[in-house]
């Protein structure tokens, strides 16, 4: 009886402390492919709407408000599948490793993004986001035919050398 208790005590004391010091210290390591809260890069986003098309919980919403495209990410119902990051052609959406999303207000989890739309000089309609136009010289699209007289801010080269 006593011997068995002593053996038990020996096993108990031979083990090290396993409790993690979290939240006062580091927790368990986050794995390589862990998908946390998503991040949007407005510099890269062209406003194509592919992410809104594939999102299973339909949390990405697009609003066309004249000269701006407004995107809303209602991340409280995000299922962290990462499909939006997969389909994004410009890799504007990335899944970060942030998991500490605890909050007392749901709107803390929202992301709002506004993209500026360029207007056609001929008809005066808004047709494409600023970022998408910036891609044209670098992605070998034909200029001056499809987008007649699009205004080019950010000092984009007017000539657009072929092959660049």
């Amino acid at each position, binding site marked *: 009886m006593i011997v068995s208790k002593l053996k038990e005590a020996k096993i108990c004391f031979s083990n090290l402390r396993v409790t993690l010091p979290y939240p*006062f210290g580091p927790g368990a390591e986050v794995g390589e492919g862990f998908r946390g809260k998503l991040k949007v890069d407005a510099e890269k986003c062209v406003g194509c709407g592919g992410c809104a098309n594939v999102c299973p919980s339909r949390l990405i919403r697009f609003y066309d408000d004249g000269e701006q495209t407004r995107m809303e990410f209602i991340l409280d119902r995000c299922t*962290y599948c990462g499909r939006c990051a997969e389909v994004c052609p410009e890799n504007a959406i990335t899944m970060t490793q942030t998991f500490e999303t*605890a909050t007392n207000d749901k709107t803390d989890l929202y992301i709002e993004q506004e993209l500026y739309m360029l207007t056609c000089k001929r008809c005066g309609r808004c047709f494409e986001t600023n970022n998408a136009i910036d891609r044209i010289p670098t992605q070998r699209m034909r200029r001056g035919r499809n987008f007649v007289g699009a205004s080019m801010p950010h000092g984009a080269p007017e000539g657009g050398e072929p092959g660049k």
Partner: protein
Amino acid sequence: MIKRWTQKAFPKSLWVYHTNCAACNGCDIEIINVLTPYYDAERFGIKLVGSPRHADVLLVTGGVSRQIAPALRRLYAATPNPKLVFAIGSCACGGDVFYDSYAMYGGVDKVIPVNFYVSGCPPRPEAILYGVAVALGLAPKKVAKEIIRDFPEAADIDVPMLELHK
């Protein structure tokens, strides 16, 4: 203010009652994970109790289905004041992929008032623990609403509409 209020209202241990309102059991397993010695939520005095009448905190998982909603309202009424409600998991926060389902309310906050939201599908045990720490005032919350505007400089915006009507 919330910190002061929580510390005033709950000077001692938080006793939690865990209820599953149409969750897939993923969040429930993570809650059980938090109570294991590895994460050891009992450091903060958190104890799982078997009755809502003993509880200070309700841990609600799952987007609330129509079947369970009256029971959840009764449960909320049975918990003595002051009480906190934690919505754990994306289903409880906003309904996840079931947000517009005919059988689900899509979020605990549509049925009973919620104090803290822990998003994740399922949330990591650390995330739940962090939510508890935020509620107790031990840690600050790390997320805030982001508003991003990608507008060019004001000088770059020309007004083609005006040219058109010349």
